[in-house]
């Protein structure tokens, strides 16, 4: 095994461990213990807060961690996705319409 392959394998193994620790231990801790009611009520807010933060990062932060407020094709597509999701309740339609509109708006803005 050459040095580069070894290095790549190390990245995979350490990457697996780095991903596994936060995935496994909190879950193990909270599934094997009785948790108070307030904790579960608090946890009810967790998904919506987490998904919102992921959306915010995708729309308003670029890959070098700078704020961007000019992804207009994404903002328009995002509004369309929310409307489609609200009325159809279909994840498939929401994703497909989202992809088509983000692509369409990008082409449109490039042509303008």
């Amino acid at each position, binding site marked *: 095994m050459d040095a580069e392959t070894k290095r*790549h394998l190390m990245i995979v193994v350490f990457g697996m461990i*780095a991903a596994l620790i936060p995935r496994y231990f*909190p879950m193990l801790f909270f*599934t094997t213990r009785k948790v108070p009611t307030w904790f579960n009520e608090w946890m009810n807010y967790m998904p919506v807060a987490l998904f919102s933060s*992921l959306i915010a990062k*995708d729309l308003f932060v670029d890959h070098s961690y700078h704020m961007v407020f000019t992804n207009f094709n994404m903002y328009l*597509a*995002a509004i369309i996705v929310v409307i489609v999701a609200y009325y159809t309740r279909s994840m498939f339609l929401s*994703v497909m319409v989202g992809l088509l509109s983000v692509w369409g708006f990008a082409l449109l803005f490039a042509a303008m």
Partner: protein
Amino acid sequence: MNEHTNEPQWLKALKACLPLMISYLPIGIAAGILLKTGGFAIWMIVLVSLFVFSGGAQFLIASSIMTGTPVFTITLLLFFLELRYALLGTSLSKYLKNESKPFIFRFAFSMNDENYAVNYLKFSTDKKWSANDALMVEYFSLLSWTVGNIIGGILGTKITIDLPIVHFALTAMFLYMVTMQLKRRILFVPVIISVVVAVLAVVMLKSTLGLIVATLVAATAGYLLERYLKANYSDSAILKRIKNPRAREMEQISEAEN
């Protein structure tokens, strides 16, 4: 409705997971192309897809190997990137109380943002959704992700993919998830707080650790506001439910199923 209840388990999980599987393919292809460009062999791309199974992590690995970042630094970056999985596991744990430790291990091993989103929605809306169904959703998403990565690895530099546009599939999925979660007016509060705090914290920390800060701040604010309003203004308009245009239809379906 018998045919519906007799539906095999794998088909039920596949149906729930299909939109995610389709979204994962192009993004997986993009990840595979980048890893190949960075010098990863195909079998290494398969290993990283199966054992790390995280879009963000694999894009980070691809860019790190291109810039020759030391393995230790990459590991540390990955750990901080993946730290938010702690929140996913914690919030799903109430649905996995009766499972064995080996099951929890397998479940945690293949959990990520996207299949968590699918499973959380199923657990919170479908009483018959089981831990095994959820694990199967994880494996279907893992399959599609790995296949995408392999295709990307084979294509290598032969094609270019517009990553920001392809990545929007996941953004759209999270937008869908938030829309489905917004059952009560008060939930707009954590959404707005989370968006504002996430942008500020991610930019200031120059790390996705900002997402954890935003999630914790927003969830705590929502929870405390609800407690405060319930104790002091129990008829407040903010506590009212949001109209669901498909609610009557869905009630009819669930009545028919019963």
